[in-house]
């Protein structure tokens, strides 16, 4: 971008400016432009590019019609004009070195890493065909035809070179244009895959012709052609191998990053980039290398790194790629405004334009005809039209033409001009018109629909069926080999490259969780409307697909800075027991309103994320709860003589049941703990695990006892209701008040989405509708269930009145429990974390263990408090 001299001068300038300081006395303020020049200019350019993007998107009408890439090129032209007028010569242009070493890899890295691999490999045959045969066809035909025309007084062989560099479809341009068009996935992956994989062909042709030009056309021997073919094989296969090697290394490294989660994303970027650089180092196909590194490594890396790192990788890659793309297009525009570098030749330009278009179309039609003999899903005529029309040329061609040596290639200026015009024409004219064309041809569009669980399961089954049928019919077809690969991957690769803890997690289970999360988010986004229907049904279900069109309420609220929370109360009509509950809540609030003690640790660590405000509060709440818990134990011992006989006996029954085997229980949980250890995430400390969990499980005091903000709007009668004597602070005993009221259930999606999700999904698994008389039923039921677990199956508690629901496993228990937690938005997020975590790792049985253990501990505590 900024001229190459800058970067080399950077260091020298640094020295020079330090010398400056010593001459001419001491200055208070110094002008150090030369010192900061290069990074400063780069930063300013990036800023300009980003601001330009914001400006474009101010007007939605423009961006829906005109692709961003066109606007950026236009902006580049304007900026180039300004610079040209200001300084009389063009200071900036797209520097090939910078382009190939920094801008291109960011885009390719993003493309490779987020490549939908199944789709890619399903269409690999077609992609390879278009990338190799298609590009060769384009290059030779364009080259020879231009050669035949003998334009611009240029010697023939150079046209072959020119044909080679102008023929390749450009990944940057294709991405920029096709991302806005939304054609169906198959079409997109074929065009896009071609644009990535044709790199090897382009590189080899370019290098071969350059060397031919260097030795002179007369000295080329037959052997050199064979060398060219060999070189193609080495460049493409070698590039792929380098990429795959780095993919394995990267996946292997991320297996061991559990204690340094913070640098996980860095490994991803570094190794993917190193794959690119290494391929460049050996002059192999760098794009191929990077693409395959991304495709190969993604599965394992995503499994190994933490959720936060995954998000970081995703957003950083997208940001970088987006900025790189912006800069490329702006600089393409700027580079065009430079009279000194190019020479216009109308004949050459028009012929090139016609030839590349015609040969692209011919090539696509011819290859598709051949491919359709072999393809299960033939490519239709309209697909072929879009593919021909989508053959965009871009910055790669421009960078290659700028790289030409002006001394050897006399016609360089003509080529530069032609390339610029071709790139502008394809990106601007074709980019602008492809959207209406796609609409007009009624090309099947991509649907942004995520597969449902049913589809996921059945499609997996279909894969197995097809593989089996191929085996039975004795055909070693695609499904056979895919099945073989999956076996190999499962038996060896995944074992080598994945953490043990992740390896044993089912893929389908993760899909299930993702779907649940998605559902819950959309439930919240729709203002919870879905919950009001008689039967809980969710957006991902077949019958409810229309919901996806509903505007996203949450993001709307967030965008508008609204402090409004979605209140389930509004949407869930509560009839009986409302007043009572509100009373309870009020007393609960007044009695137990929690004010955190302020404790500020000035804690800073470079290697770990500090404990957030939320976690600190959680700890506070926990301590408070434990104290009150202990006190309540004491009070039952000493004070609760006659008044709470019933409760006491209840409690006794519970406690008696608890340590079925007090020695075994903790021991087992110890084992669990050590097993759990590798699961430990950066955001969750395992030490809290049992304590917190048990805190949740043991008593619901923990829940209502810490109500904070969600004050119920109702007017509270001052007289104590019948329910009051069950309240913990009044009763003082170990009663289990069921005062979880819907009233206070507000959803704050931003920080508790995940937890809420889980709860929704499991709520949903209760096929029966919540009884209208007791709207809190599902939650209570959970509580009951979890507690029942805690008590070793003793369901004789007030909380467990809803033990119905039959085959509810611990899963549901946990899931149901979560809304109770989320009811304490800030307070209990950590708990929910754990609960969710528990679900994640599938260690439900540990829940029981921990509950048992805590009960046992409590009993011990009780004993020690005896005189």
């Amino acid at each position, binding site marked *: 971008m900024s001229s190459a001299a800058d970067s080399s001068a950077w260091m020298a300038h640094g020295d020079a400016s330090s010398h400056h300081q010593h001459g001419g006395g001491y200055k208070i303020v110094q002008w150090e432009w030369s010192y900061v020049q290069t990074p400063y200019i780069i930063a300013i350019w990036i800023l300009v590019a980003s601001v330009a993007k914001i400006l474009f998107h101010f007007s939605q009408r423009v961006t829906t019609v005109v692709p961003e890439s066109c606007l950026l090129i236009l902006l580049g032209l304007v900026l180039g004009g300004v610079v040209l007028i200001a300084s009389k010569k063009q200071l900036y242009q797209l520097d090939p070195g910078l382009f190939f070493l920094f801008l291109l890899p960011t885009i390719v890295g993003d493309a490779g890493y987020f490549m939908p691999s199944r789709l890619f490999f399903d269409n690999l045959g077609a992609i390879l065909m278009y990338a190799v045969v298609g590009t060769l066809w384009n290059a030779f035909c364009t080259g020879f035809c231009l050669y035949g025309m003998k334009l611009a007084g240029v010697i023939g062989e150079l046209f072959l070179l020119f044909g080679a560099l102008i023929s390749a479809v450009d990944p940057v341009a294709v991405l920029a244009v096709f991302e806005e068009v939304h054609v169906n996935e198959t079409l997109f992956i074929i065009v896009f895959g071609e644009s990535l994989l044709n790199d090897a062909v382009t590189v080899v042709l370019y290098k071969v012709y350059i060397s031919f030009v260097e030795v002179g056309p007369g000295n080329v021997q037959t052997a050199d052609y064979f060398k060219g073919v060999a070189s193609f094989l080495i460049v493409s296969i070698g590039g792929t191998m380098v990429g795959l090697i780095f993919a394995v290394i990267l996946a292997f490294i991320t297996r061991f990053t559990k204690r340094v989660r913070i640098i996980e994303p860095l490994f991803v970027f570094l190794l993917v980039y190193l794959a690119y650089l290494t391929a460049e180092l050996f002059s192999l196909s760098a794009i191929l290398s990077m693409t395959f590194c991304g495709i190969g490594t993604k599965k394992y890396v995503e499994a190994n790194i933490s959720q936060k790192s995954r998000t970081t990788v995703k957003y950083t890659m997208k940001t970088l790629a987006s900025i790189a793309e912006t800069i490329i297009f702006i600089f393409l525009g700027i580079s065009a405004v430079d009279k000194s570098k190019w020479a216009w030749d109308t004949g050459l330009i028009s012929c090139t334009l016609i030839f590349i278009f015609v040969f692209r179309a011919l090539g696509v039609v011819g290859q598709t005809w051949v491919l359709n003999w072999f393809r*299960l899903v033939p490519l239709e005529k309209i697909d072929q039209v879009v593919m021909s029309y989508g053959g965009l040329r871009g910055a790669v061609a421009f960078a290659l033409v700028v790289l030409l040596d002006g001394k050897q290639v006399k016609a360089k200026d003509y080529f530069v001009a032609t390339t610029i015009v071709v790139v502008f024409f394809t990106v601007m004219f074709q980019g602008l018109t492809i959207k209406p064309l796609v609409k007009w041809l009624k090309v099947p569009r991509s649907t942004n629909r995520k597969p449902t669980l049913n589809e996921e*399961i059945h499609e997996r089954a279909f894969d197995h069926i097809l593989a089996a049928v191929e085996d039975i019919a004795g055909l070693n077809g695609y499904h056979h080999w895919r099945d073989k690969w999956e076996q190999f991957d499962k038996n060896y690769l995944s074992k080598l490259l994945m953490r043990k803890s992740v390896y044993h997690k089912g893929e389908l289970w993760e899909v299930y969780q993702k779907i*649940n999360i998605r559902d819950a988010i959309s439930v919240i986004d729709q203002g919870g409307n879905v919950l009001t229907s008689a039967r809980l049904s969710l957006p991902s279900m077949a019958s409810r697909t229309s919901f996806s069109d509903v505007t996203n309420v949450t993001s709307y609220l967030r965008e508008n800075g609204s402090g409004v929370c979605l209140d389930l109360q509004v949407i869930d009509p509560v009839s009986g027991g409302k007043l009572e509950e509100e009373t309870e809540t009020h007393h609960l609030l007044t009695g137990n309103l929690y004010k955190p003690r302020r404790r500020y640790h000035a804690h800073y660590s470079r290697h770990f994320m500090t404990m957030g405000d939320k976690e600190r509060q959680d700890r506070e709440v926990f301590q408070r709860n434990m104290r009150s818990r202990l006190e309540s134990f004491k009070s039952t011992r000493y004070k609760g003589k006659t008044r709470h006989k019933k409760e006491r006996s209840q409690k006794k029954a519970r406690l008696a049941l608890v340590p079925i085997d007090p020695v075994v229980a903790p021991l087992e949980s110890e084992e669990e703990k050590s097993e759990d250890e590798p699961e430990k995430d950066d955001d969750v400390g395992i030490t809290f695990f049992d304590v917190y969990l048990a805190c949740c499980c043991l008593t619901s005091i923990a829940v209502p006892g810490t109500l904070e903000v969600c004050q119920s709007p109702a007017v509270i009668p001052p007289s104590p209701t019948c329910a009051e004597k069950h309240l913990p602070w009044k009763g003082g005993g170990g009663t289990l008040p069921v005062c979880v009221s819907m009233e206070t259930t507000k959803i704050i999606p931003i920080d508790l989405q995940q937890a809420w999700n889980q709860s929704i999904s499991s709520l949903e698994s209760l096929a029966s509708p919540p009884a209208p008389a007791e709207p809190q039923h599902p939650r209570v039921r959970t509580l009951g269930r979890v507690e029942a677990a805690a008590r070793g199956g003793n369901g004789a508690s007030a909380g467990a009145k809803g033990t119905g629901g039959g085959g509810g496993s611990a*899963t549901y228990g946990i899931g149901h429990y979560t809304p109770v937690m989320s009811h304490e938005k800030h307070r209990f997020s950590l708990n929910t974390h754990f609960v969710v975590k528990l679900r994640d790792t599938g260690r439900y049985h540990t829940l029981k263990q921990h509950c048992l253990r805590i009960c046992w501990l409590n009993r011990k505590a009780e004993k020690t408090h005896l005189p």
Partner: protein
Amino acid sequence: MIMFFSSPSDVKNNGHRRFFPYCHIILIPRGVSGHESGGITTFFARRFHHVTDHSCAIIMGSGDSTLSKIPNVEELMEETGFSPAHVVRLYERFQALDKSKKGQLSRKDFESIKELATNPIRDRIIGAFFAQGQEMVDFHTFVRILAHFRPVDKNRPKKANMQEPVNSRTSKLRFAFQLYDQDNDGKISRNELLQVLRTMLEMQVTDEQLESIADRTIQEADLDGDNAISFDEFRKSLEKVNIDHKMSIRFLR
């Protein structure tokens, strides 16, 4: 040697008359065994099948004699839509599998297929070949089952009186459905789903996880609230999936 005959004359083949407007002869070296040439034959056969409705390929030599060995081959081809080359290919495979040389396959024959050993739902697929209460599979059933996986051909003329072709979307789905529905009551119950999931996921998930996946799946598809998935519900839940693509094998085109 394989010949593609199509001369403007009636060629008698198994008593069936066909009209061949063109003639193509392709020579394949003698050394190439039937197995290898199968792919080539298939390819050409497919091409001719594609070009016009009138041109058809007959396989001479070994292929021809194979065809004549199969009883009622015409009906079979008519019913399943397989070309002669496919039938020959499948017949060769059938004979290779038929260890006892009785013209019928037993469960053991299927189980001895090496590649199948790692397939988690192997038993169910093998079971799909056997009709209720039957112990053996003859060649016709074998081909009919495999015909489920032929891609749907668009330009094949539709005959009014014909029943639904075996490779239609519905019969493909029916085939998959029956793999789940082991007791043949027309419903996938929770237990049946659990069994399939267990075999597909092996030991990767705990029982609780499996149950919640199964419950969720059933709830997602279950429209009438009977806690099971009927065939209609099954079809509805896969409404948006391109079954023609996902349940077809290119080789059997």
